[in-house]
C-alpha cells in the first residue's frame, strides 16, 4: 500500500516541494504557458534559460556557433555573445578537458560532443578526471558544473558511427551521472536539472526524437529531479524498464500485449475450426504492462523498479545498445538480488545484438516492438493462461456432440486459472 502510494506520488510532483526556492513541476499549471515543441527546440529553450539564469555558464563544442548540427544551440551565440557560446576545434579530448578545467573554477560548462560515437577520445578525461576530481582532492575541488551533452542512438540510417548508444560505458563510472530524457518536456526539465546539479553529468539526447517527438512544453523555468524513475503506464502483469527513444517502441509493445480479442464471437462463427491449433490462433488475452522510464541511469532509482517488480513478478528491460554488458545487465542483477522470491520468470532483456551497429542490417539489429512482444517474459503469462484455456475448451469441444455441454463446461471451468 505504501509503495503504491509512493509510486503514485512520484507521478505528480507537488510544486515547491523538496527543492527549496526553485519551482518544480512536471505538469504545467493552467496559468503557465505551454508551447508545442520538438526535442531540439525544448533543449534549445533549456539552454537559453540556463545561460540566462547563470552569468557564469558557457556552451561550447564543435559547430555550436551557427546552431549546431541538430539546431540545439540556435540563437545562443547571438543572444549571449561569442565569449559564452563558441566553437571549438575538432578535438573531443581537448574539449572535455577544457570543460573540466572551466568547471573546476566554479563555472557551468555545457559541452557538446557532436555525436555520442565521438565521445571516446574524451573517455579518459571523463573517467579519470571528471569522475574523480572531487574524490581525490578530498572535496577541495570539483567539476560539478560540467555537463556533457551528446546525441545518441539509432536514427534509421546512421550506420556504425552515427548511431551508437554508449551509456553502459559511463554507467560503470562512479562519480558522474548519466541522464537520458524520453521526450521534449522531460528533456527541458532534465537538462536544466543536469546543468544545475553539483555533479558532472553526461546527458544523452535521443537523436531520433529531435524532430519526431513533439509535445506541449511549459515555457517557464522548471526542473525534473534526477535519480527518480517514473511509472508512465500502470499495469499488473509485467514491468518494462527503458529509457530514451526505446520507450516509444516499448509502449507500442505494451499496447499490442493489452489487446483483447473477443474469442467468443470468433468461436461462434467458426466452431468447426475449433482445435488446439485453431484456438491458439484465435484466442488472445490481454496482458497489463507497467512501463517505467528510468530517466537517470546513474545513479538509478532502484526502489521504484523494485516496488514495481514486486507487484508484477516479471521484468523486461529494453535498450538499443548491444545486450552483452549493456545497462540492462545491471538492472537485471540488482532486481534479482532484491526481488528473487517475487519473480515468476527470468528477467528478460530485449536489446541490440552483439555486433557493431550495422549499416544495411539496422532493422534486424534494433530491438523492435515485435521482439519485445515475442520475448519469453511478455508471452509466458499468456502461454500459461492459454494452456489452461485450451485444455478446458478442447475437452468441451470433444464432447460437444456426445454429451450435455453444460456438464462439460463446468468441468472445464475448474481448469481455468
Amino acid at each position, binding site marked *: 500500500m505504501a509503495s503504491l502510494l509512493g509510486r503514485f506520488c512520484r507521478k505528480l510532483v507537488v510544486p515547491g516541494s523538496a527543492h527549496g526556492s526553485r519551482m518544480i513541476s512536471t505538469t504545467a499549471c493552467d496559468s503557465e504557458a505551454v508551447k508545442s515543441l520538438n526535442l531540439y527546440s525544448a533543449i534549445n529553450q533549456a539552454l537559453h534559460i540556463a545561460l540566462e539564469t547563470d552569468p557564469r555558464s558557457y556552451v561550447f563544442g564543435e559547430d555550436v556557433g551557427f546552431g549546431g548540427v541538430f539546431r540545439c544551440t540556435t540563437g545562443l551565440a547571438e543572444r549571449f555573445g561569442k565569449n559564452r557560446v563558441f566553437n571549438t576545434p575538432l578535438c573531443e579530448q581537448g574539449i572535455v578537458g577544457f570543460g573540466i578545467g572551466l568547471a573546476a573554477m566554479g563555472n557551468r560548462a555545457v559541452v557538446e560532443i557532436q555525436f555520442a560515437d565521438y565521445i571516446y577520445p574524451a573517455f579518459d578525461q571523463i573517467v579519470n578526471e571528471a569522475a574523480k576530481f572531487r574524490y581525490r582532492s578530498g572535496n577541495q575541488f570539483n567539476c560539478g558544473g560540467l555537463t556533457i551533452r551528446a546525441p545518441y542512438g539509432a536514427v534509421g540510417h546512421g550506420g556504425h558511427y552515427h548511431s551508437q548508444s554508449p551509456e553502459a560505458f559511463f554507467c560503470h563510472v562512479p562519480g558522474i551521472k548519466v541522464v537520458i530524457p524520453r521526450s521534449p518536456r522531460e528533456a527541458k526539465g532534465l537538462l536544466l536539472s543536469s546543468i544545475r546539479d553539483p555533479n558532472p553529468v553526461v546527458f544523452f539526447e535521443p537523436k531520433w526524437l529531435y524532430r519526431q517527438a513533439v509535445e506541449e512544453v511549459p515555457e517557464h523555468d522548471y526542473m525534473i529531479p534526477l535519480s527518480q524513475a517514473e511509472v508512465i503506464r500502470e499495469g499488473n502483469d509485467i514491468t518494462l524498464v527503458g529509457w530514451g527513444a526505446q520507450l516509444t517502441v516499448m509502449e507500442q509493445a505494451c499496447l499490442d500485449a493489452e489487446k483483447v480479442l473477443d474469442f467468443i464471437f470468433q468461436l461462434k462463427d467458426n466452431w468447426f475450426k475449433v482445435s488446439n491449433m485453431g484456438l491458439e490462433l484465435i484466442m488472445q488475452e490481454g496482458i497489463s504492462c507497467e512501463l517505467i522510464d528510468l530517466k537517470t541511469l546513474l545513479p538509478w532509482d532502484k526502489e521504484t523498479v523494485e516496488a514495481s517488480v514486486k507487484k508484477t513478478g516479471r521484468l523486461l528491460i529494453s535498450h538499443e545498445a548491444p545486450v552483452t554488458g549493456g545497462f540492462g545487465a545491471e538492472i537485471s542483477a540488482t532486481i534479482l538480488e532484491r526481488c528473487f522470491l517475487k519473480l515468476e520468470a527470468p528477467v528478460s532483456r*530485449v536489446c541490440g*545484438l552483439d555486433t557493431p551497429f550495422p549499416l544495411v542490417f539496422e532493422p534486424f539489429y534494433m530491438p523492435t516492438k515485435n*521482439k519485445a512482444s*515475442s520475448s519469453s517474459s511478455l508471452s509466458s503469462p499468456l502461454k500459461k493462461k492459454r494452456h489452461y484455456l485450451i485444455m478446458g475448451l478442447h475437452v468441451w469441444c470433444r464432447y460437444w456432440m456426445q454429451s450435455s455441454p453444460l456438464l462439460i463446461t463446468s468441468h472445464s471451468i475448474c481448469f481455468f486459472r
Partner: protein
Amino acid sequence: MALSRLSLRSTTFLKPSSLRRHVTTDTTPITIETAAPFTSHQCDPPSRSVETSSAEILSFFRDMARMRRMEIAADSLYKSKLIRGFCHLYDGQEALAVGMEAGITKKDAIITSYRDHCTFLGRGGELVDAFSELMGRMRGCSNGKGGSMHFYKKDACFYGGHGIVGAQIPLGCGLAFAQKYSKEENVSFVLYGDGAANQGQLFEALNIAALWDLPAILVCENNHYGMGTATWRSAKSPAYFKRGDYVPGLKVDGMDVLAVKQACKFAKEHALKNGPIILEMDTYRYHGHSMSDPGSTYRTRDEVSGVRQVRDPIERVRKLLLSHDIATEKELKDMEKEVRKEVDDAVAQAKESPVPEASELFTNMYVKDCGVESFGADRKELKVTLA
C-alpha cells in the same frame, strides 16, 4: 588565372593536324610549369617544372571527369534515397586523388578519412563497386557492410575509408613502419583534413614517425572548412605544413594536378631517405561536408562559384589540353559524354546487385569459427555463432 607556360621539348605543337589522332597515346615527355610555386618548411622545395606527357594529361582529364561525374551521380542517388546514411562528396578535390596516383605506385599505401570515394577510384576501384557499396549492396567493395565511409581495396594497398576523424593517422604511421620493416621501398600516404589537424593523435603520430624515421607522408587536405568551421576559426596556425615543427613540410596548390603529382613524387623520395614529411594540399570542396549539409550556412555561394570559375581542377586541365593542342574541344566533350555513360551504366548495374543476406549481420566480427556466440533480442531465443 595564370596559365602554365610550355617549355617546348616535344614537337607535338608542330605536328600537322592529320596526325593529331595519335595524340591520346603520345608519351613523349613534356615539361609544364606549375601555376604556383611550392612553399616549404625545413626542406628545399621541388622544382616547378613537372615532367608529364600528353597521354598522361589526357588521362588526368578523363579520371577527374569520371570522379566528378561519380560524385554528382552519388548526390542524386542520395537525394532519391537509394543511398542512405552519410555521404561525403569529393568534387572539387579530384586533382588530389589523381595527381597523387600519378606520382606513386600501387604498392604504396594510401589511407584516408571518410571522403574516400575518389581515392578508391584513383586506386583502381571500379565504378560499379563504388556505387554498390554506397547503396549497401553485395557487389560493393566492402560487401555492402561498410557504406560510403568505408571503401577499401587490398590489392591496391588502399587501407580505406575511416569514419572517426583523425583515427587513421596513427594507423597510417603503423603502415609506414611495416613498410620500412619489409625494406620494399614503399611509402604510406596518410590523408587527413584541416579539421583533423587539431586532433591530438596527429601530433602523437608525428612524433613517433619522426623518432623512428618512418616513410610516412602526412597529407593535409586543407579544404578550408572543418565541416562548418573555417580554418581561421579553428586553428591558431592555419599553416598546416608547418605544424610538424621538426617534420619538414610542403605547401601545394591542391587544385593543380601537376603540382600534386610533383609534390607526391618529391615526398616519396624524401620519405624513403629522411623520414616523415607533411604535404598541405590547398584544395576546396563544392558540396557541403556531407549530404546533410547544404554547405551554404558557413560560406557564401559567391565564394563557391568563385572557386569553381577560377580554380576548378578539371577546367585547368581542359585549358592545358586546348592550349597545347593535345585535344580539341569536341574530343574533350566526347570524352565527358563517354564518362557520363560509363557512370550511368555503373549505377544501373549497381542497382541490380542484391542486398547482403541477413546472416551477414553476424559475419566478419571475429575470425571464422572462433566459437564466439552472439545473442539475439532475447538471450534464450536466438543464438548465433559469430563468423
